[in-house]
């Protein structure tokens, strides 16, 4: 049997939901940055060390990289098919009134997130994994100080805020869309998942947005 676009969509849904799960863990880890300075430094660096040394986390991180890449690659494959299917454009087009903005702009939102990820990986992930960082009192790599000094720059905080907004709108459509692709059709549970998706999106987006703002303006 030939592979259908619906099978591509299943990959999008599965990888997307895994990334949704990862965001929860990532946010919970980041919340440690909000502790009082000395405590935050000690705990955040200990936590980072714990993650980088654990074999289970290593496996999950490879699943994560694979999910990110395949989510982007399959998005491109699917978009290419859609562009071919919708090749001739309307002279006068008002189709957008019938659907939410985020649902039509997942590609643009995803691209913003991808650009953000490149910056994010370069400044934190790469620095932590492949360079020699100064150690803190407990002998762990001092990622905390890197984060705090990075968030001192206002433009950097702004880049982050815009990216998190894009992430929010991406999640708002993506979470529910994944449930539809996986075949959820019972009206009661469709509604429940929509409400859950809204709450999830709100918590994740506001949570991630709050951290750089708090560090820059209050800490």
């Amino acid at each position, binding site marked *: *049997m*030939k592979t*259908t*676009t*619906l*099978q*591509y*969509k*299943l990959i999008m849904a599965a990888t997307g939901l895994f990334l949704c799960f990862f965001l929860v863990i990532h946010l919970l880890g980041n919340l440690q940055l909000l502790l009082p300075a000395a405590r935050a430094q000690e705990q955040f660096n200990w936590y980072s060390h714990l993650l980088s040394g654990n074999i289970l986390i290593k496996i999950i991180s490879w699943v994560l990289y694979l999910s990110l890449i395949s989510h982007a690659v399959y998005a491109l494959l*699917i978009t290419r*098919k*859609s562009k*071919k*299917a*919708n*090749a*001739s*454009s*309307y*002279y*006068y*087009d*008002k*189709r957008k*009134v*019938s*659907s*939410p903005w985020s*649902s*039509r702009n*997942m590609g643009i939102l995803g691209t913003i997130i991808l650009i953000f990820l490149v910056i994010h990986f370069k400044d934190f992930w790469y620095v932590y994994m492949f360079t020699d960082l100064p150690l803190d009192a407990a002998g762990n790599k001092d990622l905390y100080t890197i984060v705090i000094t990075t968030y001192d720059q206002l433009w950097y905080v702004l880049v982050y805020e815009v990216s998190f907004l894009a992430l929010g709108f991406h999640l708002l*459509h993506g979470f*529910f*869309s994944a449930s*539809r*692709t*996986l*075949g*959820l*059709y019972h*009206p009661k549970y*469709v509604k429940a998942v929509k409400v859950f998706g809204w709450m999830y999106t709100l918590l994740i987006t506001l949570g991630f947005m709050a951290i750089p703002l708090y560090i820059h303006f209050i800490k």
Partner: protein
Amino acid sequence: MKLHLKIWRQLNAASKGEMIEYEVSEVSEHMSFLEMLDMLNESLIQRGERVIEFDHDCREGICGQCGIMINGRAHGPLTHTTTCQLHMRSFKDGDTIYLEPFRASAFPILRDLKVNRKSFDSIIEAGGYISAAIGQTPEANSIPVSYEASEAAFDSAACIGCGACVATCKNSSAALFTSAKINHLVQLPQGKLEAADRVLSMVSQMDAMGFGNCSNTEACEVECPQDISVLNIGRMNYEYNKALLLRK
């Protein structure tokens, strides 16, 4: 009232089309949209010009034959309405109205506002039926089905195949049409037996005909004259995933 029309004129699939301007006056607000076009065509005939071709049949909103992109929306500004059920009271004197055919790679333009929707037929041919040859139409009550079940199946079966879902979709996806055709059968005892083969084959055919993927914008439900629910797409995906897992 007097109206300015900008209408897509195209001689055949191979030729290049363009928007041509027309004016119609003395349009009554009680006219249907297609009657207004009839009036314009009358005047074109009198002037010896080629008439504007558009699809129509019952003009009662039940056959699914008519379908025009009016002011950038499938079947015009109203939701859940066919082009023939749109009336001129939805417009006002002096309005400019843009008329275009439903556009999708799977719906090649035949002429002017007419498109070829054979791709829909081929999706049905791929499995939208019961394969057992039973001769004449059987007695309706020989297989008892509860009222609720038959109504639920009919909610899907109400799809008239007009193509508005494809026309309004940014991906030109036929997911709403295909799912409606799959689901009205899967909800009835006769249709259940071949559910797995049907969904695999109809979804493959939808792809083969060059329709795009469904990205769940749900615009199709808004424009669908029969208000076919997007939950049909969820159920089609459910049936598809189940068939993928269980196929031998």
